[in-house]
């Protein structure tokens, strides 16, 4: 974004800058009234924006066109949606379970059917797919490492058998493999977080016109 010139935008830029410092007063100092102000501002603004965007705009956009075409079945989800509000009534609270049943069913149905191929079958297939022809010793070592590592790590999650004997060794190896995975993952995330924070450090300088916008 270029450095704004309109007064409202310049004002906005400084508000944004101040709000950032108010929030960072929490990690850099401690919880204080300035942070609390920013916190409550954020909660209020976000709630309003989400209501306008999700509950009102998106819902109307999704419901109005089919209703106009005479698809009266679209009244059902609206009714179901408002049934959720029976939670506020002590007597008819249980009615709010019906819309939830639809959500839970959709969640489980899509979830269970969705994990079969990418989470289970594809993982097995890629574990047992050997390196392409002409692969060197390193590729074969990686093939062996990933296969044995995956098998041992899965074994670590066996919950209803005691980890004794050969299985004990396998699960200990599995645990180490898991630790390597978590460590590498953690390390990789540092990149993302620091990129984000550097964005804020950059913004701090940009508003002061020390760095170009």
């Amino acid at each position, binding site marked *: 974004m270029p450095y704004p010139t309109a007064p409202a935008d310049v004002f906005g830029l400084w508000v944004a800058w101040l709000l950032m410092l108010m929030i960072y007063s929490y990690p850099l100092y401690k919880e204080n009234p300035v942070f609390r102000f920013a916190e*409550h501002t*954020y909660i209020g603004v976000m709630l309003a924006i989400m209501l306008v965007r999700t509950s009102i705009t998106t819902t109307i956009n999704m419901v109005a066109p089919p209703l106009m075409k005479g698809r009266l079945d679209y009244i059902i989800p609206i009714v179901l949606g408002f049934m959720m509000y029976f939670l506020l009534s002590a007597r008819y609270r249980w009615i709010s379970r019906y819309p939830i049943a639809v959500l839970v069913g959709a969640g*489980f149905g899509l979830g269970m059917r969705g994990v079969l191929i990418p989470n289970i079958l594809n993982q097995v297939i890629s574990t047992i797919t050997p390196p392409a022809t002409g692969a060197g010793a390193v590729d074969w070592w990686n093939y062996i490492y990933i296969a044995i590592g995956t098998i041992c790590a899965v074994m670590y999650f066996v919950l209803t058998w005691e980890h004794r004997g050969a299985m004990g060794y396998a699960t200990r190896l599995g645990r180490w493999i898991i630790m390597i995975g978590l460590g590498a993952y953690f390390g990789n995330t540092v990149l993302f977080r620091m990129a984000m924070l550097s964005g804020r450090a950059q913004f701090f300088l940009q508003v002061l016109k020390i760095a170009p916008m």
Partner: protein
Amino acid sequence: MAEVLRREVVYLITAIVTVIMFIEFFFVGTWNVAEELRTWATIIANISLGLGAVRLLSEHAKNIQKRRAGVWPFSIWLWIIFLITILSGLAGYVTTHDAMKNPLYNWLFRWPYTSLGQTLYAITGFYIFSAAYRAFRARNIDAALLLIAGCFVILTNAPIGGVIWGGIPVIGRWFLDYGQAPAMRCFLIVAAFGMLAYGFRALLGRERGFYGEVAGE
């Protein structure tokens, strides 16, 4: 009868919706009903946000009413800024069909909202730093492996790692491309089974913990 309405019918609806999703996925044919149910679910979820809003706003109204120490003036402010934002957004939507066309709403969205979003998103940079400081200590073999893998990857992602020692990116890339693969694969597999079993119990109406019934009762 009322009991049946409160329980069995609810479980039945859950099960029917689940099965419809399965049928659509596995069997040849056109299953418009599945698509429609997904749209319904989206609409229901969108509408239900208002319920949360009622809860949130009434909590802050109570704060104000009870003059809760240290918080109530901020609760007033929350109400004010909420009303300003939503009224300007609605004004924009009603007049032009686009909330963003209202200048006040647009300003609130563009400056306070996005800045706070970026700020909070980036705040993790601080916390991941101190989390690494605390967690990456070679207390035992497990922790040492976590530490070694983590540090090599950290130095690999920064170009300077390769400048310090040419071997760092080689080892770090191995951790990224292969070293972590078995663990991630294992998590995907076992989490999938966990969900299958959990979903199966829900399908049979035997997992009711989330419907407010204590497990094992």
